[in-house]
Protein backbone atom coordinates (compact mmCIF):
# COMPACT_ATOMS: atom_id res chain seq x y z
CA UNK A 1 0.00 0.00 0.00
CA UNK A 2 1.31 3.36 -0.92
CA UNK A 3 1.61 5.83 1.86
CA UNK A 4 2.10 9.30 0.48
CA UNK A 5 2.27 12.22 2.80
CA UNK A 6 3.08 15.66 1.56
CA UNK A 7 4.13 18.64 3.57
CA UNK A 8 4.06 22.04 1.96
CA UNK A 9 7.39 23.61 1.52
CA UNK A 10 6.17 26.75 3.27
CA UNK A 11 7.00 25.30 6.63
CA UNK A 12 10.64 25.43 5.71
CA UNK A 13 10.90 29.20 5.81
CA UNK A 14 12.82 29.33 9.04
CA UNK A 15 14.98 26.36 8.27
CA UNK A 16 18.71 26.57 8.42
CA UNK A 17 20.25 26.76 4.93
CA UNK A 18 22.39 23.82 5.90
CA UNK A 19 19.34 21.73 6.57
CA UNK A 20 16.76 20.16 4.31
CA UNK A 21 13.64 18.15 4.96
CA UNK A 22 11.90 15.10 3.69
CA UNK A 23 8.62 16.25 2.17
CA UNK A 24 7.31 13.01 0.70
CA UNK A 25 7.85 9.37 1.45
CA UNK A 26 6.63 6.40 -0.52
CA UNK A 27 7.15 3.02 1.15
CA UNK A 28 10.70 2.03 1.96
CA UNK A 29 12.91 5.07 2.60
CA UNK A 30 15.68 5.16 5.21
CA UNK A 31 17.81 7.91 6.64
CA UNK A 32 21.34 6.91 7.47
CA UNK A 33 22.96 9.14 10.04
CA UNK A 34 26.75 9.05 10.28
CA UNK A 35 27.88 6.01 12.24
CA UNK A 36 24.33 4.88 12.92
CA UNK A 37 22.04 2.15 11.63
CA UNK A 38 19.70 3.47 8.88
CA UNK A 39 16.24 4.17 10.20
CA UNK A 40 12.92 4.52 8.37
CA UNK A 41 12.37 8.15 7.58
CA UNK A 42 9.14 10.11 8.00
CA UNK A 43 7.82 13.22 6.33
CA UNK A 44 9.09 16.33 8.04
CA UNK A 45 12.35 14.84 9.21
CA UNK A 46 15.37 16.94 8.51
CA UNK A 47 18.80 15.91 7.35
CA UNK A 48 22.18 17.58 7.30
CA UNK A 49 25.69 17.23 5.99
CA UNK A 50 26.94 13.69 6.19
CA UNK A 51 23.48 12.14 6.24
CA UNK A 52 22.51 9.59 3.62
CA UNK A 53 19.08 8.63 2.31
CA UNK A 54 18.33 5.27 0.73
CA UNK A 55 15.19 4.17 -1.05
CA UNK A 56 14.18 0.54 -1.34
CA UNK A 57 12.95 -1.41 -4.35
CA UNK A 58 9.53 0.23 -4.17
CA UNK A 59 10.53 3.32 -2.26
CA UNK A 60 10.59 6.92 -3.43
CA UNK A 61 11.07 10.19 -1.68
CA UNK A 62 11.01 13.93 -2.12
CA UNK A 63 13.46 16.19 -0.34
CA UNK A 64 13.00 19.94 -0.11
CA UNK A 65 15.88 22.27 0.67
CA UNK A 66 15.55 25.59 2.45
CA UNK A 67 15.72 27.53 -0.83
CA UNK A 68 12.93 25.37 -2.30
CA UNK A 69 15.27 23.22 -4.34
CA UNK A 70 13.63 19.84 -4.72
CA UNK A 71 15.19 16.41 -5.15
CA UNK A 72 12.99 13.41 -5.87
CA UNK A 73 14.61 10.05 -5.38
CA UNK A 74 13.67 7.03 -7.47
CA UNK A 75 13.62 3.45 -6.25
CA UNK A 76 16.89 1.81 -5.23
CA UNK A 77 18.64 5.12 -4.88
CA UNK A 78 21.12 6.29 -2.32
CA UNK A 79 22.34 9.84 -1.87
CA UNK A 80 24.41 11.66 0.72
CA UNK A 81 24.93 15.34 1.41
CA UNK A 82 27.84 17.68 2.04
CA UNK A 83 28.81 21.34 1.78
CA UNK A 84 25.73 22.52 3.67
CA UNK A 85 23.54 20.12 1.68
CA UNK A 86 24.45 22.04 -1.52
CA UNK A 87 26.43 19.08 -2.74
CA UNK A 88 24.65 15.80 -3.31
CA UNK A 89 26.55 12.59 -3.89
CA UNK A 90 24.52 10.12 -5.92
CA UNK A 91 25.90 6.70 -5.14
CA UNK A 92 23.32 4.72 -7.09
CA UNK A 93 19.88 5.16 -8.62
CA UNK A 94 18.11 8.16 -10.06
CA UNK A 95 16.88 11.53 -8.92
CA UNK A 96 14.94 14.41 -10.35
CA UNK A 97 16.18 17.83 -9.29
CA UNK A 98 14.45 21.15 -9.55
CA UNK A 99 16.54 24.17 -8.67
CA UNK A 100 14.53 27.41 -8.61
CA UNK A 101 15.89 30.36 -10.55
CA UNK A 102 17.92 32.50 -8.21
CA UNK A 103 18.52 29.71 -5.75
CA UNK A 104 22.03 28.83 -4.77
CA UNK A 105 24.15 26.54 -6.88
CA UNK A 106 23.46 22.88 -6.35
CA UNK A 107 26.05 20.32 -7.33
CA UNK A 108 25.30 16.65 -7.82
CA UNK A 109 28.25 14.32 -8.05
CA UNK A 110 28.37 10.74 -9.12
CA UNK A 111 31.65 8.97 -9.80
CA UNK A 112 33.89 11.41 -11.69
CA UNK A 113 30.93 13.24 -13.17
CA UNK A 114 29.28 16.29 -11.66
CA UNK A 115 26.34 18.40 -12.71
CA UNK A 116 25.70 21.85 -11.34
CA UNK A 117 23.16 24.57 -11.91
CA UNK A 118 21.69 27.69 -10.40
CA UNK A 119 18.29 27.18 -11.98
CA UNK A 120 17.15 24.09 -13.84
CA UNK A 121 15.04 20.97 -13.74
CA UNK A 122 16.54 17.67 -14.76
CA UNK A 123 17.13 14.05 -14.01
CA UNK A 124 20.35 12.24 -13.23
CA UNK A 125 20.76 8.51 -13.01
CA UNK A 126 23.69 6.28 -12.19
CA UNK A 127 23.67 2.54 -12.62
CA UNK A 128 26.73 1.06 -10.94
CA UNK A 129 29.81 1.16 -13.11
CA UNK A 130 27.74 0.89 -16.29
CA UNK A 131 26.47 4.36 -17.07
CA UNK A 132 25.46 7.81 -15.95
CA UNK A 133 22.54 9.52 -17.62
CA UNK A 134 21.67 13.22 -17.36
CA UNK A 135 18.51 14.78 -18.81
CA UNK A 136 17.61 18.46 -18.76
CA UNK A 137 13.94 19.49 -18.83
CA UNK A 138 14.40 23.26 -18.43
CA UNK A 139 17.23 25.63 -17.60
CA UNK A 140 20.90 25.04 -18.18
CA UNK A 141 23.03 22.46 -16.43
CA UNK A 142 26.80 22.33 -16.47
CA UNK A 143 28.13 18.81 -16.68
CA UNK A 144 31.82 18.27 -16.02
CA UNK A 145 34.44 15.82 -14.91
CA UNK A 146 35.76 16.49 -11.43
CA UNK A 147 39.14 14.98 -12.22
CA UNK A 148 39.83 16.71 -15.52
CA UNK A 149 40.15 20.47 -15.82
CA UNK A 150 38.23 21.92 -18.72
CA UNK A 151 36.22 18.82 -19.56
CA UNK A 152 32.92 20.56 -19.24
CA UNK A 153 29.82 21.17 -21.29
CA UNK A 154 26.48 22.90 -20.94
CA UNK A 155 23.34 20.83 -21.32
CA UNK A 156 20.33 22.70 -22.64
CA UNK A 157 16.65 21.78 -22.29
CA UNK A 158 15.85 18.60 -24.19
CA UNK A 159 19.41 17.29 -24.16
CA UNK A 160 20.45 13.93 -22.78
CA UNK A 161 23.97 12.81 -21.99
CA UNK A 162 24.76 9.14 -21.51
CA UNK A 163 28.25 8.11 -20.55
CA UNK A 164 30.27 5.71 -18.46
CA UNK A 165 30.98 6.72 -14.86
CA UNK A 166 34.73 6.40 -15.38
CA UNK A 167 34.76 8.40 -18.58
CA UNK A 168 37.78 10.58 -19.34
CA UNK A 169 36.08 12.72 -22.00
CA UNK A 170 32.43 13.69 -22.11
CA UNK A 171 30.54 12.62 -25.25
CA UNK A 172 28.28 14.90 -27.22
CA UNK A 173 24.72 15.05 -25.91
CA UNK A 174 21.73 13.83 -27.89
CA UNK A 175 18.22 15.31 -27.94
CA UNK A 176 15.06 13.81 -26.49
CA UNK A 177 11.35 14.58 -26.49
CA UNK A 178 10.60 16.52 -23.29
CA UNK A 179 6.82 16.04 -23.56
CA UNK A 180 7.11 12.25 -23.74
CA UNK A 181 9.54 12.25 -20.84
CA UNK A 182 7.14 14.32 -18.72
CA UNK A 183 4.19 12.07 -19.54
CA UNK A 184 6.02 8.88 -18.61
CA UNK A 185 8.28 9.87 -15.73
CA UNK A 186 6.90 8.65 -12.40
CA UNK A 187 9.05 11.16 -10.54
CA UNK A 188 6.84 13.77 -12.21
CA UNK A 189 3.48 12.00 -12.42
CA UNK A 190 3.35 10.57 -8.91
CA UNK A 191 4.29 13.77 -7.12
CA UNK A 192 2.98 17.30 -6.77
CA UNK A 193 3.34 19.47 -9.89
CA UNK A 194 6.79 20.99 -10.13
CA UNK A 195 7.21 24.71 -9.56
CA UNK A 196 9.02 24.79 -12.90
CA UNK A 197 6.13 23.11 -14.73
CA UNK A 198 5.36 26.15 -16.87
CA UNK A 199 8.95 26.57 -17.94
CA UNK A 200 9.10 22.90 -18.88
CA UNK A 201 5.89 23.29 -20.90
CA UNK A 202 7.45 26.28 -22.59
CA UNK A 203 10.42 24.10 -23.59
CA UNK A 204 8.00 21.46 -24.88
CA UNK A 205 6.39 24.11 -27.06
CA UNK A 206 9.77 25.17 -28.39
CA UNK A 207 10.51 21.56 -29.35
CA UNK A 208 7.15 21.26 -31.09
CA UNK A 209 7.94 24.36 -33.11
CA UNK A 210 11.35 22.98 -34.03
CA UNK A 211 9.75 19.69 -35.07
CA UNK A 212 7.24 21.58 -37.19
CA UNK A 213 10.08 23.60 -38.69
CA UNK A 214 12.04 20.43 -39.48
CA UNK A 215 14.96 21.20 -37.18
CA UNK A 216 14.08 18.10 -35.17
CA UNK A 217 12.97 14.80 -36.63
CA UNK A 218 11.31 12.45 -34.14
CA UNK A 219 13.17 9.19 -34.49
CA UNK A 220 11.83 5.72 -33.83
CA UNK A 221 14.41 5.19 -31.11
CA UNK A 222 13.11 5.17 -27.54
CA UNK A 223 14.85 4.42 -24.26
CA UNK A 224 12.15 2.86 -22.14
CA UNK A 225 12.64 3.38 -18.43
CA UNK A 226 16.03 3.17 -16.94
CA UNK A 227 19.15 2.12 -18.69
CA UNK A 228 20.41 2.79 -22.16
CA UNK A 229 18.57 -0.01 -23.88
CA UNK A 230 17.14 1.44 -27.03
CA UNK A 231 13.93 0.09 -28.48
CA UNK A 232 13.12 0.43 -32.14
CA UNK A 233 9.45 1.35 -32.17
CA UNK A 234 7.10 2.00 -35.08
CA UNK A 235 8.41 4.68 -37.30
CA UNK A 236 6.92 8.11 -36.62
CA UNK A 237 4.84 9.83 -39.29
CA UNK A 238 7.76 11.96 -40.32
CA UNK A 239 10.75 10.56 -42.11
CA UNK A 240 13.07 8.79 -39.70
CA UNK A 241 16.79 9.49 -39.79
CA UNK A 242 18.71 7.51 -42.33
CA UNK A 243 20.73 5.86 -39.61
CA UNK A 244 20.38 5.70 -35.85
CA UNK A 245 22.45 7.89 -33.61
CA UNK A 246 25.80 6.28 -33.23
CA UNK A 247 25.74 6.40 -29.46
CA UNK A 248 22.71 4.27 -29.08
CA UNK A 249 22.65 0.82 -30.55
CA UNK A 250 19.65 -1.20 -31.54
CA UNK A 251 20.75 -4.23 -29.60
CA UNK A 252 20.53 -4.42 -25.89
CA UNK A 253 23.11 -5.84 -23.59
CA UNK A 254 22.43 -6.74 -20.02
CA UNK A 255 25.26 -6.03 -17.60
Amino acid at each position, binding site marked *: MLVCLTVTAGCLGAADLKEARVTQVVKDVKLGLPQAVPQPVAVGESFRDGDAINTGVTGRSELTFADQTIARLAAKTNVSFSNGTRSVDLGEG*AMLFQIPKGAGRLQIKTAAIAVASTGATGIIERHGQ*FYVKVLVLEGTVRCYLTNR*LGESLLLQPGQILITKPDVTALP*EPADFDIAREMKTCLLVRDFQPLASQRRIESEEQKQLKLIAKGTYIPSNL*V*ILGRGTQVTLVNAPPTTPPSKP*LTNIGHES*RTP
Partner: protein
Amino acid sequence: MHGQAPPGSAQNRAQLLGGQAYPGPSATPSAETEGYPVTSPNDKDIGEQQILKRVEEYKPFTISVYSPVYWTSNAALVSRGEQDDVLVAPGVTLMYEPRITNTLYAQVGVIQQFFFYDQLTELNFASLDVIAGLHYYLPQFHNLSLRGYYDYNRLTTTDNFDEIFVNNSIILNAELPFRIARAQQLLAGVALNLSFEGNPQSPRRNNYSLYGTYDVALSRSFSLDAGFQFVVRDYYSGDRTDVNEILSVSANYRVRDWLTLSALSSFAWNQSNHSVFDYSVANIGGGVALTLKF
Protein backbone atom coordinates in the same frame (compact mmCIF):
# COMPACT_ATOMS: atom_id res chain seq x y z
CA MET B 1 64.06 57.20 -41.36
CA HIS B 2 61.26 58.33 -39.09
CA GLY B 3 57.87 57.47 -40.39
CA GLN B 4 59.18 55.83 -43.53
CA ALA B 5 58.41 52.16 -43.86
CA PRO B 6 60.73 49.70 -45.62
CA PRO B 7 59.44 47.64 -48.52
CA GLY B 8 56.98 45.00 -47.37
CA SER B 9 56.27 46.64 -44.03
CA ALA B 10 52.62 47.27 -44.92
CA GLN B 11 52.37 43.59 -45.82
CA ASN B 12 54.01 42.70 -42.51
CA ARG B 13 51.67 44.95 -40.59
CA ALA B 14 48.61 43.56 -42.36
CA GLN B 15 49.71 39.99 -41.64
CA LEU B 16 50.68 40.74 -38.05
CA LEU B 17 47.45 42.43 -37.05
CA GLY B 18 44.96 41.38 -39.67
CA GLY B 19 44.82 37.77 -38.60
CA GLN B 20 44.49 38.57 -34.94
CA ALA B 21 41.69 41.04 -35.41
CA TYR B 22 39.51 38.43 -36.98
CA PRO B 23 40.44 34.78 -36.96
CA GLY B 24 38.15 34.04 -39.88
CA PRO B 25 35.18 31.79 -40.03
CA SER B 26 35.67 28.10 -40.34
CA ALA B 27 33.17 25.43 -41.07
CA THR B 28 33.22 22.65 -38.53
CA PRO B 29 31.85 19.20 -39.14
CA SER B 30 29.27 18.17 -36.61
CA ALA B 31 30.36 15.66 -34.05
CA GLU B 32 28.24 12.62 -33.55
CA THR B 33 27.62 11.14 -30.21
CA GLU B 34 28.85 7.92 -28.77
CA GLY B 35 27.40 5.72 -26.07
CA TYR B 36 27.00 2.51 -24.28
CA PRO B 37 23.96 0.29 -24.70
CA VAL B 38 23.22 -1.15 -21.30
CA THR B 39 20.02 -2.05 -19.49
CA SER B 40 19.09 -1.81 -15.86
CA PRO B 41 15.94 -2.61 -13.87
CA ASN B 42 13.30 -1.42 -16.26
CA ASP B 43 11.11 0.61 -13.97
CA LYS B 44 9.43 3.75 -15.10
CA ASP B 45 10.83 6.13 -12.54
CA ILE B 46 12.64 8.27 -15.03
CA GLY B 47 10.30 7.74 -17.94
CA GLU B 48 10.87 7.21 -21.64
CA GLN B 49 13.31 9.17 -23.71
CA GLN B 50 12.36 9.37 -27.35
CA ILE B 51 15.41 10.42 -29.27
CA LEU B 52 15.02 13.40 -31.57
CA LYS B 53 17.36 13.71 -34.48
CA ARG B 54 18.53 17.27 -34.89
CA VAL B 55 18.81 18.34 -38.48
CA GLU B 56 21.85 20.50 -38.63
CA GLU B 57 21.17 23.91 -40.04
CA TYR B 58 24.30 24.92 -41.81
CA LYS B 59 24.79 28.65 -42.35
CA PRO B 60 27.25 29.24 -45.16
CA PHE B 61 27.42 33.04 -45.03
CA THR B 62 29.42 34.99 -42.49
CA ILE B 63 29.67 38.73 -42.12
CA SER B 64 32.07 40.11 -39.59
CA VAL B 65 32.83 43.71 -38.74
CA TYR B 66 35.64 44.44 -36.30
CA SER B 67 37.75 47.29 -35.05
CA PRO B 68 40.87 46.62 -33.04
CA VAL B 69 42.84 49.49 -31.55
CA TYR B 70 46.52 49.01 -30.73
CA TRP B 71 49.37 50.85 -29.22
CA THR B 72 52.34 49.81 -31.29
CA SER B 73 55.95 50.26 -30.23
CA ASN B 74 57.31 50.42 -33.77
CA ALA B 75 54.84 51.90 -36.18
CA ALA B 76 57.01 51.70 -39.29
CA LEU B 77 58.56 48.30 -38.45
CA VAL B 78 62.06 49.71 -38.77
CA SER B 79 65.36 48.62 -37.25
CA ARG B 80 66.40 52.08 -36.07
CA GLY B 81 64.54 55.23 -35.12
CA GLU B 82 61.51 53.39 -33.88
CA GLN B 83 58.44 55.46 -33.16
CA ASP B 84 55.44 54.30 -31.23
CA ASP B 85 51.93 55.20 -32.26
CA VAL B 86 48.31 54.24 -31.87
CA LEU B 87 46.81 52.23 -34.68
CA VAL B 88 43.17 51.59 -35.48
CA ALA B 89 42.48 48.73 -37.89
CA PRO B 90 38.77 48.47 -38.67
CA GLY B 91 37.75 45.80 -41.14
CA VAL B 92 34.97 43.78 -42.63
CA THR B 93 34.94 40.18 -43.77
CA LEU B 94 32.35 38.61 -46.04
CA MET B 95 32.67 34.87 -46.39
CA TYR B 96 30.64 32.25 -48.22
CA GLU B 97 31.44 28.64 -47.37
CA PRO B 98 29.03 26.29 -49.12
CA ARG B 99 29.20 22.68 -48.02
CA ILE B 100 29.98 20.38 -50.90
CA THR B 101 30.14 17.16 -48.88
CA ASN B 102 30.17 16.49 -45.15
CA THR B 103 33.88 17.17 -45.02
CA LEU B 104 34.51 19.37 -48.03
CA TYR B 105 33.65 23.06 -48.15
CA ALA B 106 34.24 25.73 -50.71
CA GLN B 107 35.38 29.08 -49.45
CA VAL B 108 34.91 32.42 -51.18
CA GLY B 109 35.48 35.65 -49.35
CA VAL B 110 36.36 39.31 -49.36
CA ILE B 111 38.31 40.95 -46.56
CA GLN B 112 38.80 44.68 -46.42
CA GLN B 113 40.80 46.19 -43.59
CA PHE B 114 42.11 49.71 -42.96
CA PHE B 115 45.13 50.69 -40.93
CA PHE B 116 44.99 54.23 -39.57
CA TYR B 117 47.83 55.65 -37.51
CA ASP B 118 47.26 58.43 -35.06
CA GLN B 119 50.55 60.33 -35.56
CA LEU B 120 52.30 58.78 -38.54
CA THR B 121 49.42 59.19 -40.92
CA GLU B 122 51.69 58.80 -43.93
CA LEU B 123 51.82 55.11 -43.03
CA ASN B 124 48.07 54.67 -43.39
CA PHE B 125 47.06 51.96 -45.80
CA ALA B 126 44.23 49.62 -46.70
CA SER B 127 44.35 45.92 -47.47
CA LEU B 128 41.90 44.09 -49.69
CA ASP B 129 41.92 40.30 -49.96
CA VAL B 130 39.74 38.28 -52.26
CA ILE B 131 40.02 34.56 -51.65
CA ALA B 132 38.60 31.45 -53.23
CA GLY B 133 39.42 27.88 -52.41
CA LEU B 134 38.56 24.62 -50.72
CA HIS B 135 38.57 23.45 -47.15
CA TYR B 136 38.72 19.71 -46.47
CA TYR B 137 38.47 17.91 -43.15
CA LEU B 138 39.77 14.43 -42.47
CA PRO B 139 38.06 13.21 -39.29
CA GLN B 140 39.80 9.86 -39.66
CA PHE B 141 43.17 11.61 -39.34
CA HIS B 142 42.68 13.34 -36.01
CA ASN B 143 40.40 15.96 -37.58
CA LEU B 144 43.17 17.18 -39.83
CA SER B 145 42.10 20.27 -41.73
CA LEU B 146 43.47 21.04 -45.19
CA ARG B 147 42.91 24.28 -47.01
CA GLY B 148 44.04 25.50 -50.36
CA TYR B 149 42.98 28.81 -51.86
CA TYR B 150 43.89 31.61 -54.15
CA ASP B 151 44.46 35.01 -52.55
CA TYR B 152 44.36 38.28 -54.40
CA ASN B 153 45.84 40.95 -52.13
CA ARG B 154 45.84 44.64 -52.92
CA LEU B 155 47.39 47.26 -50.65
CA THR B 156 46.35 50.84 -51.24
CA THR B 157 46.48 54.25 -49.69
CA THR B 158 43.48 55.19 -47.63
CA ASP B 159 42.73 58.60 -49.09
CA ASN B 160 42.31 57.88 -52.79
CA PHE B 161 43.01 54.14 -52.81
CA ASP B 162 46.13 54.42 -54.96
CA GLU B 163 47.71 51.06 -55.35
CA ILE B 164 50.82 50.39 -53.24
CA PHE B 165 51.22 46.71 -53.94
CA VAL B 166 49.26 43.94 -55.54
CA ASN B 167 49.95 40.27 -55.06
CA ASN B 168 48.50 37.00 -56.32
CA SER B 169 49.29 33.94 -54.32
CA ILE B 170 48.30 30.38 -53.59
CA ILE B 171 47.98 29.53 -49.92
CA LEU B 172 48.20 25.95 -48.72
CA ASN B 173 47.46 25.23 -45.10
CA ALA B 174 47.26 22.15 -42.88
CA GLU B 175 46.08 22.23 -39.28
CA LEU B 176 45.97 19.46 -36.71
CA PRO B 177 43.95 20.04 -33.52
CA PHE B 178 44.72 18.25 -30.27
CA ARG B 179 41.89 18.36 -27.79
CA ILE B 180 43.23 18.38 -24.25
CA ALA B 181 39.76 18.62 -22.80
CA ARG B 182 36.46 19.91 -24.06
CA ALA B 183 37.42 23.46 -23.12
CA GLN B 184 41.11 23.30 -24.01
CA GLN B 185 42.71 22.75 -27.36
CA LEU B 186 46.12 22.84 -28.92
CA LEU B 187 46.49 23.31 -32.62
CA ALA B 188 49.55 22.88 -34.82
CA GLY B 189 49.66 24.17 -38.34
CA VAL B 190 51.81 24.71 -41.36
CA ALA B 191 51.12 27.23 -44.11
CA LEU B 192 52.70 28.05 -47.43
CA ASN B 193 51.95 31.37 -49.09
CA LEU B 194 53.35 31.20 -52.58
CA SER B 195 53.32 34.39 -54.59
CA PHE B 196 53.08 33.83 -58.33
CA GLU B 197 52.54 37.37 -59.52
CA GLY B 198 52.95 40.77 -57.92
CA ASN B 199 53.74 44.40 -58.48
CA PRO B 200 56.08 45.97 -57.57
CA GLN B 201 58.61 43.20 -57.20
CA SER B 202 60.48 44.33 -54.08
CA PRO B 203 57.83 43.31 -51.51
CA ARG B 204 57.01 40.05 -53.31
CA ARG B 205 57.83 36.99 -51.27
CA ASN B 206 56.90 33.46 -50.36
CA ASN B 207 56.02 32.74 -46.74
CA TYR B 208 56.66 29.38 -45.09
CA SER B 209 55.00 29.22 -41.69
CA LEU B 210 54.83 26.88 -38.73
CA TYR B 211 52.46 27.82 -35.97
CA GLY B 212 50.76 26.59 -32.87
CA THR B 213 47.89 27.89 -30.78
CA TYR B 214 46.43 27.12 -27.40
CA ASP B 215 42.80 27.96 -26.56
CA VAL B 216 41.11 27.58 -23.22
CA ALA B 217 37.50 28.49 -22.45
CA LEU B 218 37.35 29.54 -18.82
CA SER B 219 33.59 29.97 -18.96
CA ARG B 220 30.88 29.89 -21.58
CA SER B 221 31.71 33.51 -22.45
CA PHE B 222 35.36 34.00 -21.60
CA SER B 223 38.31 32.43 -23.35
CA LEU B 224 42.05 32.88 -23.60
CA ASP B 225 44.13 32.25 -26.71
CA ALA B 226 47.87 32.13 -27.17
CA GLY B 227 49.74 31.54 -30.37
CA PHE B 228 53.22 31.34 -31.75
CA GLN B 229 54.18 31.60 -35.39
CA PHE B 230 57.52 31.03 -37.05
CA VAL B 231 57.73 32.36 -40.59
CA VAL B 232 60.46 32.31 -43.19
CA ARG B 233 59.94 35.04 -45.77
CA ASP B 234 61.79 34.49 -48.97
CA TYR B 235 61.73 37.63 -51.09
CA TYR B 236 61.85 37.50 -54.86
CA SER B 237 64.22 40.40 -55.25
CA GLY B 238 67.37 41.53 -53.52
CA ASP B 239 68.42 38.14 -52.18
CA ARG B 240 66.49 38.96 -49.02
CA THR B 241 65.34 36.33 -46.56
CA ASP B 242 63.66 37.17 -43.26
CA VAL B 243 62.86 34.99 -40.29
CA ASN B 244 59.89 36.28 -38.38
CA GLU B 245 58.56 35.12 -35.02
CA ILE B 246 55.22 36.24 -33.68
CA LEU B 247 53.83 35.62 -30.21
CA SER B 248 50.23 36.61 -29.60
CA VAL B 249 48.00 36.43 -26.55
CA SER B 250 44.37 37.46 -26.41
CA ALA B 251 41.45 37.33 -24.02
CA ASN B 252 37.97 37.22 -25.50
CA TYR B 253 34.65 37.91 -23.87
CA ARG B 254 31.58 36.92 -25.85
CA VAL B 255 28.87 39.35 -24.84
CA ARG B 256 26.38 37.83 -27.27
CA ASP B 257 26.67 35.13 -29.90
CA TRP B 258 27.34 37.91 -32.39
CA LEU B 259 29.37 40.32 -30.24
CA THR B 260 32.86 39.72 -28.86
CA LEU B 261 35.14 42.05 -26.94
CA SER B 262 38.84 41.25 -26.90
CA ALA B 263 42.06 42.30 -25.26
CA LEU B 264 44.82 41.75 -27.79
CA SER B 265 48.58 41.68 -27.69
CA SER B 266 51.26 40.54 -30.06
CA PHE B 267 55.01 40.65 -30.16
CA ALA B 268 57.05 40.14 -33.29
CA TRP B 269 60.73 39.82 -34.03
CA ASN B 270 62.12 39.98 -37.54
CA GLN B 271 65.64 38.97 -38.47
CA SER B 272 66.84 39.44 -42.01
CA ASN B 273 70.00 38.59 -43.90
CA HIS B 274 70.00 42.35 -44.56
CA SER B 275 70.21 43.86 -41.11
CA VAL B 276 68.41 47.02 -42.21
CA PHE B 277 65.23 44.97 -42.23
CA ASP B 278 65.60 43.69 -38.68
CA TYR B 279 62.96 44.94 -36.31
CA SER B 280 60.96 44.11 -33.25
CA VAL B 281 57.52 45.36 -32.33
CA ALA B 282 54.99 45.06 -29.56
CA ASN B 283 51.27 45.70 -30.08
CA ILE B 284 48.86 45.95 -27.20
CA GLY B 285 45.22 46.87 -27.44
CA GLY B 286 41.66 45.75 -27.59
CA GLY B 287 38.89 45.28 -30.05
CA VAL B 288 35.28 44.65 -30.74
CA ALA B 289 33.92 42.22 -33.34
CA LEU B 290 30.39 41.72 -34.61
CA THR B 291 29.76 38.48 -36.45
CA LEU B 292 26.61 37.25 -38.15
CA LYS B 293 26.11 33.84 -39.73
CA PHE B 294 23.21 33.06 -41.98
